[in-house]
């Protein structure tokens, strides 16, 4: 793995973690669930829990890659009429409140397309994002988006799947930031088993990639995170956290400040409990 010495914060964080022998913990949260103010507080809680960078998920009406947990979160957020710009603003608000970790926006392609791709990247820069993941924009369709990402210094982070086969090399070769390795076939969500060939898949990606590799889809516990700690540079946890948020909704939306804090603390504790215990040696 070689890390370019660009100014992108994602690269810097991975370089620091590599020096310390640590695995990146990357939480995902659906923005606007239950509301934007809580999303900002949850981002702060994630950093306090030891997250190294964070994916902010844009709610979408037709989330093809997502399982029921994130679908429900998206539906709740869309009832509040949350749009792409609202989600981006969570990053800049969190930064004002002192959050230092890099931000990655996770959005389906159509909201970005409707905003206009140039404007989309201008706004990502304005709000302080370092990366973007677009799950329904495969290699074959991403030329214009990739060019705009490069010229604005934002990493377009690609996904690879156990079924990608011959495509792994092409995807990994031009990846920026990190390669997002899908751990199992299917949609996002908590599961107990990973794809049979996951280990050889990860080593194939590792060989082809010149940037760090991270594993996501179905990772819901410290045991899962530790299982991949040796093979990958980071783990992404989405649905498991979104489900914790769902369970804590009565607290998070409470008018009683103490209850609200209790809800935020519960999410923070959950995220802290996901951190793999890796050592330097």
């Amino acid at each position, binding site marked *: 793995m070689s890390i370019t010495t660009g100014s992108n914060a994602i690269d810097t964080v991975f370089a620091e973690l590599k020096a310390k022998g640590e695995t990146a913990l990357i939480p995902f949260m659906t923005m606007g669930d239950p509301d934007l103010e809580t999303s900002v507080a949850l981002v702060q809680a994630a950093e306090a829990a030891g997250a190294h960078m964070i994916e902010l998920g844009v709610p*979408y*009406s*037709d*989330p*093809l*890659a997502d*399982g*029921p947990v994130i*679908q429900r979160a998206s*539906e709740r957020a*869309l009832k509040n009429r949350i*749009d*792409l710009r609202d989600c981006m603003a969570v990053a800049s608000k969190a930064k004002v409140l002192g959050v230092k970790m890099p931000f990655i926006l996770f959005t389906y*392609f*159509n*909201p*970005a*397309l*409707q*905003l206009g791709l140039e404007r989309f990247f201008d706004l990502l820069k304005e709000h302080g994002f370092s990366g973007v993941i677009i*799950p*329904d*924009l*495969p*290699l*074959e*369709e991403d030329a214009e988006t990739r060019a705009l990402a490069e010229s604005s210094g934002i990493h377009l982070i*690609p*996904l*690879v*799947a156990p*079924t*990608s*086969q011959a*495509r792994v090399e092409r*995807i990994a070769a031009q990846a920026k930031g990190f390669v997002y390795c*899908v751990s199992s*076939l*299917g*949609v996002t969500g908590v599961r107990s088993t990973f794809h049979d060939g996951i280990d050889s898949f990860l080593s194939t990606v590792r060989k082809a990639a010149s940037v760090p590799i991270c594993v996501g889809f179905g990772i819901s516990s410290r045991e899962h995170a530790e299982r991949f700690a040796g093979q990958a540079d980071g783990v992404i946890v989405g649905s498991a956290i979104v489900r914790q948020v769902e369970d804590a909704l009565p607290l998070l939306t409470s008018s009683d400040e103490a209850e609200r804090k209790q809800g935020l603390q519960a999410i923070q504790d959950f995220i802290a409990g996901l951190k793999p215990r890796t050592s330097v040696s």
Partner: protein
Amino acid sequence: MSQVPDQHGRFGPFGGKYVPETLMNALIELEEAYLKYKDDPDFLEEVRYLLKQYSGRPTPLYYAERLSEHLGGAKIYLKREDLNHTGAHKINNTIGQAVLAKRMGKKKVIAETGAGQHGVASATVAALMGLECKVFMGEEDTKRQQLNVFRMKLLGSEVIPVMSGTRTLKDACNETLRYWVSHVDDTYYILGSVTGPHPYPMMVRDFQRIIGVESREQILEAEGRLPDVVVAAVGGGSNAIGIFHPFIEDKDVRLVGVEAAGRGVDTEEHAATMTKGRPGVFQGSMSYVLQDEGGQVLPAHSISAGLDYPGIGPEHSYLKDIKRAEYVPITDKEALDALGILSRMEGIIPALESAHAIAQVLKIAPTMSKDEIIVVNLSGRGDKDVESIMSYLAVEEGQQS
């Protein structure tokens, strides 16, 4: 006109493959298999044999004399796709795809359905070829179309009610794609329209082209010339592209697609994707989409479950933009009136989808001269809709009294 789609599945700016990486290899595998077999004589012969002996093709091109005289204008010909086995054009496509699935060595198939027509057509060919079949259907639709749910079960398929999102066709499509991602190794997805990622819009069009190929031959035989206008209803657009496509090079033939205006294009309850939508990416391809300002896909409405869809096939978007085809809206009420007129004038109860096309014919035929010709695609029969028509009319009467 150059050949569309190109090798990337593009119809001009429309089409493409906007799907999660987990599906890309399955689509590439499907495309390779289809390109391998589409000109293979054995494959084509098996499809042709089943279309003829099993589904009953060619379907007639029937001169609707009483209706034509009643309207006092153009001569109206009905392409009787309603006379296919299972009662609609949908089986043209499911036969083709099931033969392909078998060639690919797949033993399991899945399909999405709205009203249940494509689901029934998929369950039918699955039974015919001994394939295990699961049909995904919005929970709302399973309630509205209980008879079709039972029909699919009789045919040996499993019907899976979809509880997510709108609980109608749009989310049945999402759920089928999600299921496919998890079972991509051994499962073939029989997609029912000219929508979705490449190669579906191209492949489904190729399987539905038979409608236009036959119509063209039949009208030349009956009238010695081509029609002036071809009319078809458009939801996803498979029956329309099927009848349009063989006429595209015939520049003097006007092609008219009829979309569902529901309670009116100025209300929020319609499915008029071309009239009120704009280009975007939805369910795997770039095309016109009903969406809000931020790019969230809007729910559609039509009395016809087959047209109740916020997207449209990419080739239609292309034909609209190059001005080769025109797209017009017809309301629920206009479609119902047309259904009544065709039933009484010709003794043919059309599907609610097809009734939209008939409604447009009622508008344009009287403005045309008696030596002009309209061919309209009667894509399906109305038996499946009788119950929803009864309840719609009951509500109407209740409001009037």
